[in-house]
């Protein structure tokens, strides 16, 4: 999987995020109050407008402070009943139907069936549930207003805040129930869809070689299992009874050999390792340039906003990940490294052949660097490399100081007088004795072929800690959909407090789509997209100009760029306000078998809550200040 943005650490994130949130909330509140004041002025004149505005704000405190749980729950229950009356079950029936059809079309024999199945169920569930709550939440309040049932409700001591909150809670509860049922169904569907086993008979096995050392009249046997789901597994059985079933299509099977009745009977278990949740341990990435000095970034090979930096082959240039917290308890046997590296070829050569690179381990204190692994890499192929605890074979060992070139001069770590080349003169290295210093170790990636480049971003290389529970990860994936659902409910109810049903639905959908592309909007706002801002881009489009050439200087260009600047702030404001719906989508993590970290969950949970509070407040104010009986 290609994760294109850094995974935030909750503790680092929360402070800054909270500050930005408070600023944004303050600005929005100020704009809201000003807007309310202006509207009141237009209606009642400036004198009473001030009185009205202050009154509304004071009322708001009472209305939000005095929310009664019993009333909110009553309204939430009503929303659930309404949803049931609107035949929510139909959505579930559709889901079951889709799964039944999918059972025919999803190919369990594809090269990564788990990804196919998981991606499918997560996408289907999220589309169905999100669409459903979009309908429910956006249509409910307007329906109550047109049928005037709301008149009977608001003439009870019900606060507008309770009406908005009750609706939000009710539809959330409804969606939650639906998600739980769909989640369980999906889990069963995936496990059953992937489930299979192979057979292995005596005829499938053959002795490896007649000359191989015989152990008690036995030889090493190898063979292939039967073909199920368009694949076979290679099986090796050693004379000692030790056996191995090779992995195919992302999984393997356990082999049991029953010799109790003379001739061995082979029995293969269910697929193993198909559904997993890798726990990546990420390091901090820096680079070393061709001269061997430290840099923040590598070389840019074109797309300057791509997060990956490149290192030149056949030079000292390296991408360096520093890992912390490396202890024998966490990694008792060595470091399992997984990486997917970008390969940029300046000449094509043999495309079938990969580009050679190497991995080294370096002690950040002493500078001892041991090149342990040479490998061949293809573009974005996920490679698994095991760096053992006892390093007996290695291609080179040397002490390399880290060179920092700053404007005030050059500095090396360790300093020249502390460099001890003798450290490298050993036959065998121990990971924890020689290479890890205070839990820290560096992994160096180099490209060995001149004129070829490797590209890497921080999440591209990681250590793989012990796998987490897949079922839990699957649930976390559904929690991501749940967060999206809650946001849609929030926006839907908020818009429905002042818009008619269909318009509220379109508005919510607009917020959803805008939020999905909020990253693009931000880039557009800051002119990071080729071809300038929206107006400039439009002119280029109409006049069929190239995206890169400078526009003719002149009044027209000036005006267009000026307008763009205004639009850019507007776009920026919008992109900053809309929730980045896409970021709440964990489907890829689950489908590609990556554990969704607690940090990620916390960050998303808090940002969803951060969006919901102002959405709720806006809904309250809109409903409070509208005439229900119009």
């Amino acid at each position: 999987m290609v994760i294109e943005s850094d995974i935030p650490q909750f503790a680092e994130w929360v402070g800054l995020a909270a500050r930005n949130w408070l600023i944004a909330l303050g600005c929005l509140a100020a704009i809201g109050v000003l807007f309310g004041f202006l509207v009141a002025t237009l209606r009642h004149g400036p004198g009473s407008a001030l009185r009205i505005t202050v009154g509304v704000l004071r009322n708001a405190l009472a209305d939000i402070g005095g929310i009664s749980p019993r009333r909110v729950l009553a309204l939430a229950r009503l929303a659930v009943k309404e949803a049931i009356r609107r035949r929510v079950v139909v959505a579930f029936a559709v889901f079951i139907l889709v799964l039944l059809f999918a059972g025919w079309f999803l190919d369990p024999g594809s090269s990564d069936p788990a990804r196919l199945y998981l991606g499918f169920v997560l996408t289907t569930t999220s589309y169905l549930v999100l669409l459903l709550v979009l309908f429910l939440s956006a249509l409910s309040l307007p329906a109550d207003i047109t049928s005037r049932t709301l008149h009977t409700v608001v003439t009870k001591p019900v606060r507008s805040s309770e009406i908005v909150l009750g609706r939000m809670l009710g539809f959330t509860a409804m969606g939650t129930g639906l998600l739980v049922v769909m989640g369980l169904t999906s889990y069963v569907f995936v496990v059953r869809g992937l489930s299979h086993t192979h057979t292995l008979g005596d005829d499938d096995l053959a002795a490896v070689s007649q000359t191989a050392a015989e152990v008690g009249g036995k030889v090493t046997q190898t063979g292939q299992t039967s073909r199920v789901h368009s694949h076979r597994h290679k099986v090796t059985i050693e004379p000692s009874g030790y056996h191995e079933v090779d992995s195919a299509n992302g999984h393997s099977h356990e082999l049991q050999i029953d010799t109790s009745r003379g001739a061995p009977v082979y029995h293969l278990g269910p697929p193993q390792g198909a559904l997993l949740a890798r726990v990546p341990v990420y390091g901090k990435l820096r680079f070393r340039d061709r001269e061997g000095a430290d840099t923040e970034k590598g070389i840019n090979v074109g797309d300057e906003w791509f997060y990956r930096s490149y290192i030149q082959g056949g030079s000292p240039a390296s991408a360096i990940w520093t890992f912390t917290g490396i202890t024998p308890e966490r990694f008792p046997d060595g470091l399992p490294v997984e990486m997917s590296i970008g390969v940029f070829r300046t000449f094509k050569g043999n495309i079938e052949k990969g580009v050679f690179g190497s991995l080294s381990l370096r002690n950040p204190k002493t500078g001892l660097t041991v090149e342990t692994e040479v490998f061949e890499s293809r573009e974005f192929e996920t490679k698994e490399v095991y760096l053992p605890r006892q390093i007996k074979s290695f291609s080179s060992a040397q002490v390399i100081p880290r060179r920092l070139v700053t404007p005030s001069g050059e500095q090396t770590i360790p300093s020249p007088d502390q460099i001890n080349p003798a450290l490298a003169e050993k036959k065998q290295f121990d990971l924890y004795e020689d290479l890890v210093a205070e839990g820290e170790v560096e992994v160096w990636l180099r490209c060995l072929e001149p004129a070829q480049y490797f590209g890497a971003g921080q999440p591209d290389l990681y250590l793989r800690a012990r796998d987490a529970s897949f079922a839990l990860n699957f649930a976390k994936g559904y929690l991501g959909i749940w967060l999206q659902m809650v946001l849609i409910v929030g926006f839907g109810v908020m818009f429905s407090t002042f818009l008619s049903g269909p318009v509220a639905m379109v508005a919510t959908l607009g917020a959803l789509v805008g939020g999905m592309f909020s990253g693009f909007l931000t880039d557009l706002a800051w002119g990071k997209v080729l071809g300038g801002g929206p107006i400039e881009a439009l002119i280029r489009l109409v006049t069929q100009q190239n995206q890169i050439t400078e526009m003719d200087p002149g009044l027209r260009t000036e005006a267009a760029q000026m307008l763009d600047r205004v639009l850019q702030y507007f776009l920026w404001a919008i992109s900053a306000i809309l929730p980045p719906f896409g970021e709440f989508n964990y489907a890829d993590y689950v489908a590609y078998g990556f554990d969704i970290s607690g940090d990620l969950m916390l960050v998303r949970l808090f940002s969803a809550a951060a969006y919901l509070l102002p959405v709720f407040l806006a809904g309250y104010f809109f409903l409070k200040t509208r005439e229900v009986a119009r």
Partner: protein
Amino acid sequence: MHSSTTQTDSPPASTTQTEVVIETRNLTKVYRDFWGRQKVRALKALDLEIRRGEIFGLLGPNGSGKTTTIKLLLGLLFPTSGQALVFGREATDVTKNERIGYLPEESYLYRFLNAEETLDFYGRLFNMPSAIRRQRAADLIEMVGLTKTKRRQLKEYSKGMTRRIALAQALINDPELVVLDEPTTGLDPIGTREMKDLILRLRDEGKTILMCSHLLADVQDVCDRIGILYQGELKELGRVDSLLKVRDVTEIRTTTLSEAAKEEIQQVVRRHGGEVQFMGNPTTTLEELFLHIIRESEAHPGRRVRGGADSNGH
């Protein structure tokens, strides 16, 4: 609270001593369209005072602004100018609703709930504890005579049944002020009679009642005081009995007389400078008054009652 029944029997002087429950000052409502253009002036500078323990009737033809007045008093609409106060609080203050029961013009209830669920739901909105809620719901269902059908969804109810459950809903909180918008529409004659009896019973329990209707008979039978609205203007305001007293006409009612006796009476009247206009059975005079007001307003638009003081006839 219960002494109010006796007070309303006596002339206006004593009503000034009881608490004002509803007060409107110069209350005006202009309906505007989306662009803020004026569409209808539905209510024009209404001044009204309704006191604890009385049954006040708003009378007027369709579209005269009765429902608009009620919605303004309940905070469902915001006044264009002027003020509406209920229990001394702004009409938009939701806490006043604790003491109000409202029966809307049509029964705006959730049709997918049954009678029990409906009452339970509205009871919860009053934050009533479940035991009280259940007791109250059972009593009310009994009172409106829906015990047999209480488990059926409201969408299966007839118009009269819906009206009854709507009434029960309005009384769930044992309100001090009951606001009834056209309480008898959709009811058969027996239902109408029951409704009127109920209104009187509520008044006897010390509740204040504001009702509006276009049916003269309803108002005449139960209301202590009435206001007549026509095209958003308050045309008449006063006690029903005094409004119907025609000051410049003296009516004599006797047991059946002989022709000679009638002739003698006419002579006596003539001797005192009077003139006998009519001798026979009296008519339902509210209808007459009503039609008279409408004729008057068409002849002299703009003449109306102001200041909330009781006026006695014309």
